[in-house]
C-alpha cells in the first residue's frame, strides 16, 4: 500500500516538474510541447475511465474527441458564442454522443464492443469528411478556431494559453481523482474484476458502465475543443480511427487503470515523437518498436515501474 502512495506521489512529482520546467524554458518551445501533452492527457485520463477502470476497450473515442472539437468550433465560429460556454457545450456534446454511442455499442460486449465502437466512430468520420461538409469544412477542416477572451489576457500568446491549459488540466485531473475514489469508481472496479459478482451484489452493471462512458465522453469533448483552439484548426482527421488507436497506445504505454499513468504515457509518446522526428524520418517506426517492447515487457506500463507490479490492471475486456 505504501508503495502505491509513494509511487503515485512520485508520478505526480514528475508531471508537476514537467509542467513547471516547460514554463521555465524561455520562448515557446517548452510550453508548446507540454500544452499538447496536457490536452491529450486530459483525453487519455477520460479514456482510461472506460478502458482501465471499467474495463471496456473502446476503439471509438476519436468520435467523442472530434465531435467535442467540432461542437465548440461551430458554436464559436458560426454563432459567436464565447469560449467558456463553447467549452461547456463541447463537454455536453461529447457526453451526449457518448450516451448515443453507448445505446448502440453496449448491446454487445468484449471484442464486439471494440469493433462496434470502431465502426460507429469511423462512420462518423466518413460522414464528417463529406456528407456533413457544411458543418465540418469537409476534409479541409475549419481554420481559425478561436481562443478564450478572458480577464483581458491575450491567450493568442502561447505562454498565456499554456497557463489556461494547465488550469483546465489540473481541474480535470482533480475531478477524475475524486471520481475514481468515490463509490462510483469503486463500483466500476468491482465490475471490471467480476461483472457477474458485481451484479449479484446489487450493482446495475449496465447503468454504471454507461455512466463511465458518458463521463469519458465529456472529457474527450473538452479536450477535443482545447486541441482545436490550441491548433487554431480542426479537421475530420481528429475523428479518424487512428486517433482512437493513438489514445489506446498512450494509455497502455503509461499504465491503464491508473490515474497518472496515462498522463505519463502521453508525455512519453509526444516527447518521443518530438525528439525522434528531429533526427529521423523513421520516427513512427521507432515509436512502434518502443511500443511493441513495452507491450511485451512492461505489462503495467510506465506506472508499473513506479507502483511495483501486481496489484493493478488485472483483467480486461474479454
Amino acid at each position, binding site marked *: 500500500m505504501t508503495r502505491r502512495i509513494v509511487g503515485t506521489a512520485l508520478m505526480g512529482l514528475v508531471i508537476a516538474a514537467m509542467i513547471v520546467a516547460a514554463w521555465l524554458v524561455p520562448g*515557446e*518551445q517548452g510550453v*508548446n510541447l507540454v500544452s499538447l501533452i496536457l490536452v491529450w492527457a486530459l483525453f487519455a485520463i477520460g479514456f482510461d475511465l472506460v478502458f482501465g477502470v471499467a474495463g471496456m476497450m473502446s476503439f471509438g473515442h476519436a468520435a467523442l474527441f472530434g465531435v467535442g472539437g467540432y461542437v465548440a468550433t461551430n458554436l464559436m465560429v*458560426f454563432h459567436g458564442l464565447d469560449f467558456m460556454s463553447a467549452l461547456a457545450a463541447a463537454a455536453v456534446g461529447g457526453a451526449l454522443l457518448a450516451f448515443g454511442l453507448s445505446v448502440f455499442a453496449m448491446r454487445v460486449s468484449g471484442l464486439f464492443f471494440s469493433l462496434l465502437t470502431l465502426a460507429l466512430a469511423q462512420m462518423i468520420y466518413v460522414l464528417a469528411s463529406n456528407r456533413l*461538409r457544411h458543418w465540418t469544412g469537409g476534409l479541409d477542416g475549419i*481554420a*481559425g478556431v478561436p481562443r478564450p477572451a478572458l480577464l483581458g489576457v491575450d491567450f493568442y*500568446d502561447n505562454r498565456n494559453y499554456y497557463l489556461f491549459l494547465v488550469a483546465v488540466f489540473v481541474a480535470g485531473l482533480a475531478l477524475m481523482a475524486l471520481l475514481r475514489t468515490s463509490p462510483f469508481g469503486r463500483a466500476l472496479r468491482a465490475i471490471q474484476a467480476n461483472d457477474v459478482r458485481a451484479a449479484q451484489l446489487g450493482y446495475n452493471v449496465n447503468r454504471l458502465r454507461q455512466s463511465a462512458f458518458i463521463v469519458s465522453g465529456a472529457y474527450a469533448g473538452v479536450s477535443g475543443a482545447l486541441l482545436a483552439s490550441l*491548433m487554431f*484548426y480542426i479537421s475530420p482527421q481528429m475523428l479518424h480511427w487512428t486517433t482512437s488507436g493513438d489514445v489506446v497506445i498512450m494509455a497502455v504505454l503509461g499504465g491503464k487503470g491508473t490515474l497518472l499513468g496515462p498522463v505519463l504515457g502521453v508525455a512519453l509518446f509526444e516527447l518521443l515523437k518530438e525528439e525522434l522526428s528531429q533526427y529521423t524520418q523513421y520516427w513512427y517506426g521507432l515509436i512502434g518498436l518502443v511500443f511493441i517492447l513495452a507491450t511485451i515487457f512492461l505489462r503495467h506500463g510506465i506506472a508499473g515501474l513506479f507502483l511495483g507490479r501486481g496489484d493493478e490492471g488485472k483483467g480486461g475486456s474479454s
Partner: protein
Amino acid sequence: MKRRTFLKMTGAAAAASAFPAPFVRAATPEEYHIAAILSFSGAYGLIGGGMRRGAELAVAERGGKVLGVPIRFSWEDDETKPQPAVQKATRLLGQGANMLFGAISSASTLALQSLSTQRRVPHLVTISADDALTVPGGARYSFRTSNTMGMEVQMCVEFARRRGLRKVYVVTADYQVTRTGFEQFAARAAEVGYEIVGSDFAPLGTRDFSVIIDKMARSDADAILVMVTGNDGVTFVRQAGQVALGADRVIFGPVLQDEVLASVTGPAALGVNSGVRYHFSLENDPNRAFVEAYRAAHGEFPSSFAGEAYDGMRWWLRAVDESGSWDVEDWVKNFESSVYADSVEGRKQMRACDHQAAQVGLWGEVVKGEAPLPELTMRITDIFEADRLFGAC
C-alpha cells in the same frame, strides 16, 4: 464563403488582442529564417522533396542571402496532415522564423494560413490549389504564386471549347474543391456548347472505378472529364486503360497527369490530357537557365512542384530584398503590387485584391518521350492567356 468569414473573424480577434512584443520582430536580425512546412511522408510525401530542391535553388541563385543576411531554411514534414503542420509551424515561429512556406495539401495550407494571419507572418504558397486560399479581402499575409483550382477548371472549359467536345461524362472526387470545380464546369456547358451526359461523385480514396468506367464505356460520351487528382486519378486512368476507354474518347482533367504520375500510371497514361502547373520544356530564358541549373545539381528534369517552388520563392525573395526593410508590412506592400516579368512561366502579376498571381495556364498531353526525357512525358499543347482564366477581382 464561410471560410472568408472565419478569416476575417480571426484576423479581427488577433488585431483586437493587441499583440505584445514577440510578434514584432527585432530590427537587427542575423539571418532570414524560412519555416518550410511540406509533406515528406503521407499522401503527398512524394512532393516535398522536389519543392525543397526548387526552393533551395532559388536561394542558392541569390548567393544564399536576402537583405544582406544569410537565408536559413527549417524543413519540416507535416505527414500530409494539418495538425502536425500547425504544430511544427508554431514551434518554428516560436524560434523567430520570418516566414512560412507551404504546405502541400490545401487542408494543411489553410491551417498555416490562419496561423499566418494570427501571427502576422508572411506565408508563401506555391502548390495548394484550393480557391479559398486567395479570396478578395482574405488573409493579409498570405500569397499564392501558383495555379488555383478555379483557373484549372477554366482551362478544362477552354480545352473543351478548342477541341469542340460535345458530350462529356464527368467523374468528380467527393471533396469540396473538386465539387466546386465540377459545378463551375457544368455552369459553362450551354455557353461553350458541350453537354454533361453523366456524372458521378466518387469518395476520396476510391480504389475501384470499374463500375463507373463501365458506365462511361456504355454512354455516348466523346470525352471523359476526371476531376479526381493524385493517387485516385492514377487509379482511374490505369483502370480505364484496362478497357481501352481512351481509344475513342478524350480523357482530360485539371491536374490529372504529369511526369511523376504518368510514370506510376504506365502506358495507360498515353493520350491523356491535363492541366500542367509548370513544365521544364517552356521556351524562355529564365526557364532554360533554371532547368539547366536544376539538371546540373540533381541529374533530372525539375518536376512541376520543383518549378513552382523555385519560381515563387525567387519572386518573393526578390520583393523582400527590394523593400530594403525588415518590416513585414513593407514586404507585403511590395509583393502585392509586384510584376514578375521573368518568371519561368513567362509573366506573373500579383493581384493586390486577393494575393493571387495572375498567370498563363499550361495544358499538355502525355506522349512517349525520347531520352533524356522520361519514358512518358507531357507535351505542352496549349497555353491559355491569363485574362481567359482569371475573372475581375
